[in-house]
């Protein structure tokens, strides 16, 4: 049994992360605290930075030097990291950034939220870029996705984001850790390590000629297209005969799963699509639904992922939304009520057609 925040830390160490730069903010503090204890034991480096801005720039430096580097924060702090994430992506530097999302905007609250979905899935900082974004729904998945995040970051030389919230960060669940990452970290001949026996290396994102910057951006976009093709991940639960498909990720997916059981017991044909990658968004399963007559998106926000759901179904199905925000977690009862409401409307509609 392990706390989610600490499980991320141990998984990062298994993945070969030896540089962690943190800054306190609730609800992720157990992660930097864990790294402060554990990293020195494995010959790693923990630095508590003066700000989230400094922490992400320390990550930028360590990643430029070829290390597997990580930082974590929560929503207001992740806003501050966006400058650095843009530079990391522009310079094609790998790193992992954890966001234990809390209610916003502004200082907001400290309770669970999913209101950073837009920020996470649209790049977040300035310029044309994307980051691979995972949304975990259990402590075991935090472990697995952390290890995969380092792997994917190195493979695509791009920052990877891991999103969860205070519930997942602080809950204790059993978790199994592999002994080593599935792949050894790749060689990084581009890293700045001192130009010894090779031409010097340069890590830079200043490209003053528009045609060259345009070419650079299209090359990055080609990489993002590959990520879209290869890395999209989701979980399906009883979608085959579902007339109503609920889309939810992270903590909200757990709530929906509880509501789903109750709905099925009442004979309602409801299924769940749980995106595991938030970007790239799993549009494919929504495009090949056969029996579905409506989609319901449930989020802890005023409606962000629902826009990706609408883009995916392209108007072929009505898309409903149910959201709680500001740190309020929806209950299975609330979700079940909304499911029944929509199921009722569908039945009425079917009756009307007869």
């Amino acid at each position: 049994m392990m706390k989610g925040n600490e499980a991320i830390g141990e998984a990062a160490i298994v993945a070969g992360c030896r540089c962690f730069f943190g800054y306190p903010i609730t609800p992720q503090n157990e992660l930097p605290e864990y790294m402060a204890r554990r990293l020195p034991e494995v010959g790693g480096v923990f630095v508590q930075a003066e700000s989230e801005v400094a922490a992400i720039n320390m990550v930028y430096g360590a990643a430029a030097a070829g290390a597997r580097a990580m930082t974590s924060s929560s929503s207001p702090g992740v806003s501050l990291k966006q400058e650095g994430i843009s530079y990391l992506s522009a310079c094609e530097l790998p790193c992992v950034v954890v966001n234990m999302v809390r209610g916003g905007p502004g200082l907001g609250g400290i309770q669970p939220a999913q209101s950073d979905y837009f920020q996470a899935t649209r790049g977040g900082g300035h310029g044309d870029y994307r980051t691979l974004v995972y949304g975990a729904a259990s402590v075991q998945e935090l472990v697995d996705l952390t290890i995969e995040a380092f792997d994917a970051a190195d493979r695509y030389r791009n920052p990877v984001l891991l999103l969860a919230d205070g519930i997942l960060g602080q809950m204790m669940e059993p978790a199994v850790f592999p002994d080593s990452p599935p792949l050894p970290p790749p060689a990084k001949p581009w890293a700045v390590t001192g130009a010894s026996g090779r031409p010097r290396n340069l890590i830079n994102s200043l490209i003053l000629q528009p045609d060259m910057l345009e070419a650079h951006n299209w090359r990055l976009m080609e990489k993002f297209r590959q990520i879209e093709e290869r890395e999209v991940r989701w979980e399906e639960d009883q979608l085959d005969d579902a007339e109503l498909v609920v889309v939810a990720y992270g903590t909200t997916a757990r709530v929906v799963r509880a509501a789903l059981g109750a709905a099925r017991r009442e004979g309602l044909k409801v299924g769940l699509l749980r995106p595991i990658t938030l970007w790239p968004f799993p549009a494919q399963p929504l495009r090949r639904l056969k029996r579905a007559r409506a989609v319901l998106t449930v989020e802890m926000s005023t409606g962000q992922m629902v826009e990706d759901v609408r883009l995916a179904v392209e108007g072929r199905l009505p898309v409903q939304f149910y959201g709680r925000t500001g740190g309020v977690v929806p209950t299975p009862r609330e979700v079940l009520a909304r499911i029944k409401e929509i199921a009722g409307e569908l039945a009425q509609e079917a009756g009307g057609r007869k």
Partner: protein
Amino acid sequence: MKQVFGRPRVLNDVVMHYCPGCHHGVIHRLIGEVVDELGIAERTIGIAPVGCSVLAYNYFNLDFVQAAHGRAPAVATGIKRALPDRVVFTYQGDGDLAAIGTAEVVHAAMRSERITVVFVNNAVFGMTSGQMAPTTLVGQKTTTTPWGRDARVHGHPLRVAEMLAALYGPAYIARVSVHTPAQVMKAKKCLEKAFRTQLEDRGFSMVEFVSNCPTNWGLSPLDSVRWLEENMLKYYPLGEFKLPEEVA
């Protein structure tokens, strides 16, 4: 025939973009000479700032990273902590280091990161065309202080060397200039001490160069040197503000 003078090995044979009379070129050369003489080129990593000297990465044949505005000391921290046996230096102007990057340099100094900061203070934002910097002198005209810096509106200029020397962390802090041949020689000695401070693992080191900006000061190169001597050096006295015992 014995060659007694030439371009430092780590300086590339390229035309620099700096304006005529600007001191960046001299300061680059001094870094090149010190890196050559210490024999550390193959394990040195430089960090370029945002500002006039952003293109420094084109002039040094060294591994280089370009950092976001003001963040060079944090980037240097990341590199040095990942690779503690390398030599890491930042090259930063006063807009970069003393305005947007104040927190980063103060905390790198406080932690006594084993890095060397080369700080070039010419009392204006140069690349963005001469706006007021935190280091702009009271009364000095800039594009954002068209009637001269008014201390009641913008306060008094920041003395970075004195500020950092007041901290426990730094090992070596000096302020130098390169406006006369004698000062160039002194500046080189200080720069060498700063790099030696890092090589001997004594702590954070910074050399502040009181520099010029003929273009944005609206002066000829020669007049800019006179102005520097008569105005800058009064407010920014030269000297060593902090020394580790053995380096002193």
